[in-house]
């Protein structure tokens, strides 16, 4: 194990039960492994991409890392600042507090809250601090809240310049943003937290080329300015070539090929089974 490793995934197996019609024509539940045996080490401060066909278990792996699914076997260790923490039995919110951020494939935003509130709730410890006392905690007129608002506005300016739609629409409901803007808000929001590792599930799906360029810049900003580690699932190979330092190709529940993005694209198996060229 290298000293600049941030996440160690050790022999993870995960099965689901599916219903099939057996040879005698009867319904039968069958257990099948989505993840056969995943071993993976993520280097700190780098961008690692995970590619693979639909249904190969990429999102399942992300769900296991962020604590929404429990693996059948194997363990995951996280090393945010020097010491190893075993994640296997921690629930999702505790993993988030340790510094694992997550963005989902479809835009998960707080639709009925304002753009600014969407940023504020993502602040580190916002949800963690004093859960029961929150009832008697006047939120507007205190310094913590003011600092949070300044922090959110600074993030918008750093990422999108002085005149940007997020600052102009900060008091409007987030559902009024376009799909692409919601995606950018989802990424900007991750800067509010004190995250060490970000799991991004297909950040570029369904958005236009201009926004893809912005997403690229934001992901580089995460790594270069904030010293975060990024682990992303992606189908857009051009994007992977542009941003990723390392790439893993997943197939049939295992990591089939690993290397730099150029190596992966050059691999004959990947070309045949995934890229179709």
């Amino acid at each position, binding site marked *: 194990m290298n000293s600049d490793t941030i996440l160690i995934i050790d022999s993870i197996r995960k099965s689901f039960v599916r219903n099939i019609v057996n040879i005698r024509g009867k319904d039968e539940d069958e257990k099948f492994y989505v993840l056969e045996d995943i071993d993976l080490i993520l280097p700190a401060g780098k961008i690692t991409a995970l590619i693979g066909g639909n249904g190969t278990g990429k999102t399942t792996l992300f769900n296991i890392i*962020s604590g*929404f699914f429990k693996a059948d076997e194997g363990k995951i260790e996280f090393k945010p600042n020097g010491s190893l923490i075993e994640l296997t039995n921690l*629930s*999702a*919110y*505790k993993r*988030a*507090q340790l510094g694992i*951020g*997550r963005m*989902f494939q479809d835009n*998960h*935003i*707080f*639709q*009925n*809250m304002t753009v600014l*509130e969407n940023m*504020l*709730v*993502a602040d*580190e*410890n*916002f*949800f*963690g601090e004093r*859960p*029961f006392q*929150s*009832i*008697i*905690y*006047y*939120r*507007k007129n205190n310094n913590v809240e003011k600092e949070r608002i300044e922090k959110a506005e600074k993030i918008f300016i750093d990422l999108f310049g002085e005149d940007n739609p997020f600052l102009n629409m900060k008091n409007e409901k987030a*559902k009024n943003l376009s799909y692409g803007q919601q995606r950018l808000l989802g990424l900007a929001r991750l800067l509010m*937290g004190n995250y060490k590792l970000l799991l991004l599930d297909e950040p570029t799906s369904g958005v236009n080329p201009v926004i893809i360029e912005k997403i690229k810049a934001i992901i580089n900003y995460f790594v270069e300015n904030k010293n975060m580690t990024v682990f992303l699932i992606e189908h857009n190979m051009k994007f992977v070539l542009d941003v990723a330092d390392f790439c893993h190709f997943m197939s049939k529940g295992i990591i089939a090929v690993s290397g730099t993005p150029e190596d992966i694209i050059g691999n004959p198996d990947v070309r045949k089974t995934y890229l179709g060229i």
Partner: protein
Amino acid sequence: MLLQFIINGIIVGSIYSLVSLGFAIVYNTTRIFHIAYAVLYMFCPYMILTFFSNLGIPIFIAFIIAILITVVLSLLMEIIIYRPLAKKNSSLNIIMISSIGIMIIVINTIALFYGNETKILNPDISETFSFGDIIITYIQLAQFVISTIILLIFLAFLKFSKFGIRTRAMRDDDILCSVFGMDIYKMRIILFTLSAIFAAIGGGLVAYDVGMDPYVGMPMLLNAVVALIIGGIGRFEAPIIGGFIIGILQSLSVWAISARWQDAVTFTLLILFLLFRPQGLLGEKKRAV
């Protein structure tokens, strides 16, 4: 005479608002169609009966003890039934059916110990006072004042405290809340506590006026759900407005037609809303997908 009925409607409406808000607190945030909420409304008066009528504890203290026991019952439902089901990713339908199960069990248990017949908490005829032609009993006044104060306090907390922003976040997306480090099960404890308090206070105030039997919860739950739908699902102010509308409308139907028509009028209003304004008064239309 008309004014008297409108005032009566506002008083009943304040109770509907309170009970409907308690249901909405759970429904809007956890999406659980908490049918067992009906028994919380019925359970509190029976606890008051035990402590006040049987043990002779002063009514005010008996009421508080009864509310606390109702909260415990509500938390037991969450911890023993809803939470394990939610952790298993059970569908909301399964959770709702289990909620019906809880309701039947509690109703039968209460009927076993206390009997099926109507019980009275306050055997005296309550004293009244009058403004001109309008006559109000003291218990009616208490119903209105206590519910209105609680509703106002809750709305203020929702607007100004951090609890408010948490609740709204959870209403929008609870998965996202846990991604940002919120322990949603701790939050659910607070929500189930609040909802039980609202049901218990509503149930206690009504039962002190008109008495109770083990089956009073369900009709009240139906009114609460109609108030929620008319007001607009998703907004916490909505059940309050819906509750007052139903209360006044029912009272007016007593005045104009007869008391038997109360429920018919309520559900006609529900059907009209579902047909012509399904998002409710305060709700926003959903964007087409």
